[in-house]
């Protein structure tokens, strides 16, 4: 169990670093996929199957595909090469700052006690999650549904190209 944790977390961290350091956005997108997969694995070790699958299904399966869609459609690769890597000092400073951030938060977290509570049967499975979703969180569930619709329509309106050479569709 612990080895699995170490492997997955190492993988996650490495790919996370890869996400921000690759010059080509496609590679960062792919490394993000790897991060997500490793996180999904971690969720499994944390008895959260439902979320692991949701993670893969929505995150890796939908959101990142959207990303790659955008990258492919806008074939950004060419002009990305122009982006010169940020000055060395900026990266060092940022790294330091990140480190400082990490240390600060870690210092906060360090104090937490490590004992794990007894888990109920079917903890984290789809059934229990489903039950919870439709009993306690039903309102939130509906609102998120609405939210997604709104996002859908919003994205559509925003990115819809006003094709001026096509007669306006008569809907």
């Amino acid at each position, binding site marked *: 169990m612990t080895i699995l944790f170490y492997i997955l977390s190492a993988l996650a961290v490495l790919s996370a670093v890869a996400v921000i350091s690759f010059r080509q956005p496609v590679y960062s997108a792919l490394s993000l996929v790897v991060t997500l997969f490793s996180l999904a694995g971690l969720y499994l070790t944390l008895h959260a199957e439902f979320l692991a699958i949701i993670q893969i299904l929505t995150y890796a399966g939908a959101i990142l595909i959207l990303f790659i869609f955008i990258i492919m459609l806008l074939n950004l690769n060419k002009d990305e090469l122009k982006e010169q890597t940020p000055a060395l000092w900026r990266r060092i400073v940022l790294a330091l*700052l990140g480190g400082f*951030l990490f240390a600060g938060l870690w210092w*906060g977290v360090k104090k937490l006690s490590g004992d794990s509570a007894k888990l109920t049967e079917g903890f984290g499975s789809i059934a229990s999650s489903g039950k919870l979703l439709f009993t306690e969180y039903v309102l939130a569930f509906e609102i998120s549904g609405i939210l997604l619709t709104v996002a859908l329509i919003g994205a559509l309106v925003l990115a819809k190209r006003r094709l001026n050479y096509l007669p306006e569709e008569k809907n």
Partner: protein
Amino acid sequence: MVLAWIILLPLLGALINGYHALSCRLRQQKVIHGMVNFVGVGLPFVAFLIALSQGIPFILGAEEPIRENLFSWISVGSLHIEAGLYLDRLSTLMVLIITGVGTLIHLYSIGYMKGDSGYAKYFAYLNLFLTSMLILVLGDNLLLLFLGWEGVGLCSYLLIGFWFEDKAKAQAGKKAFIVNRIGDVGFLLGIFALGVLLLPGAGENAVIFNFEYIESQIGLITVSKVFWLSAPFIITLFLFVGATGKSAQIPLYVWLPDAMAGPTPVSALIHAATMVTAGVYMIARMDFLFDVAPETLHIIAIIGASTALFAALIAMVQTDIKKVLAYSTVSQLGYMFLAMGVGAYAYGVFHLMTHAFFKACLFLGSGSVIHAMSGEQDIRKMGGLKKALPITSMTFLIATMTIAGLPPFAAFFSKDHILWKTYSHGHPILWVMGLLAAFGTAFYMFRLYILTFTGKSRVSEEAKAHLHESPFNMTFALIVLAVLSAVAGFLGLPEVLGGHDWIAHWLHLGSNAAEAHGASHSHTMELLLMGVSVAVATFAILLAFVLYRNGLEGPNKRARAMRPLHNLLTNKFYVDEIYDACVVRPIYYLSQSILFTVIDRKLIDEVLVNRSGRFLAWLGSCVSRIQNGFVNRYAFCFLLAFALMLGIWVFN
């Protein structure tokens, strides 16, 4: 209220004439000469009569001075200043001189100023002058005296600059006023010092600046100190500075020669008879204070003597008739101050009286000469006028003999008294200087007389054409003055010559100490000195005759011989130029380039005001540089802030 009328009458005259002058000028009408004459001359004459009526009891030996309290001028807290008038023997003498000579001069100026456009304005100013002189003389306290003092300065400014179209004349007026003003500042400081001393001790309604009150406090004054120096010395020194300013002594005499720019009767009245003598009167009035400050007296004496000598030297080479007379006035004033300096106040006043008569006569004489020569003042273009102007030349001759100090005439007695007193009070050097001054006076006066009236006539043709004797109203004044200057001497006939020196006893000025000191010398010495002075005078006269009998060629040749000395004298020892160089110009430069441009413009305006404004604008712009629209920069700031907060949270 009688005394008040003496002052009010000329004031009334001034107002009437002034109003008349202005309204005529505004309505472009001709000035009614008759009314102006009547008012202008009549009112002063009436004032003279009133003065006489008040004065006679004094002349006949009355002791008790007449006091009149008009109104309370300034009363603040414990300081009370009353506007009061005070007549005693000294002021009667002065008032009589002023009103008497004044009226004569008014009479004279009717003729002199006949064709002038500002005729009424002239008489208004003259009357105003009389008023302020009378206030000066009749005032019972120092403030009123100062009021008159400045009033007189104002009138001299107006009168000197009477013909203001001419730039030089206007500037002469301004110069006179400013130099007087410098003197007046000294005077003011003297008054303040006195005030500081007397105020604390003064009772509830004590009138601290009254002469009697000061006399009563003399004990307190002699003992107390002002600015770590002895009080009487400081106060009298300041008052004397005022006097030098007004009576044109060494440092501040420069305005008198330029003051000749005014009409001649003005010079006669102001710069001969009355105003310049104000300083002498002030010292005479405050004799009790000066007695207590021997050092100041000593200074006064020295300055008096040196001024007399100095002015006499310059007068010897002057070519303008009025300039010669101006310098002679300065030297005669020197004599008066010499008298005051040695403590012989009475004889100073006596000389003042005699001087008023013969100097007025001389000025009026020169006035009629100029009138006849239609404005020509340069004696080198005159000569042999005796035949054309008989009365003027005769009166001029009498006055010249008087001033030279020949025995029967007034000046001999007064000048001799002064010389005797200087010698008898132990100032041999001053006596010598006085003697030399007397020699100089006699020399330049007769030089003037000879060059203008006798000898070859150097008058230009067209001037000779309408050379005429001045009308009666002018010659009348000349005659009266000539007679007076001849007779006045006998008032002060010294004991040595059998007279009982009436004037000195009458005035009994100054403490007896000065008197006692002089008694030791015997009468013979006095006679001896008198003889020496007469000899010196006659020698000077002969010398003048010899030199200038046949015109100017000889003297010019000799002048060229001793060129450096002659140039020095003709340019009045370059005194004006020195003053200008070391006082006027530096102040002008200081204020123009340093004070105004550097401090005012640059230092305060530029640096403090504009520069700070610009600094704020700069500050604003450099802060706005952070908003450079670069999104990542903003994110970076977020991160920084977050890290900071985290740090704070962590560390406490």
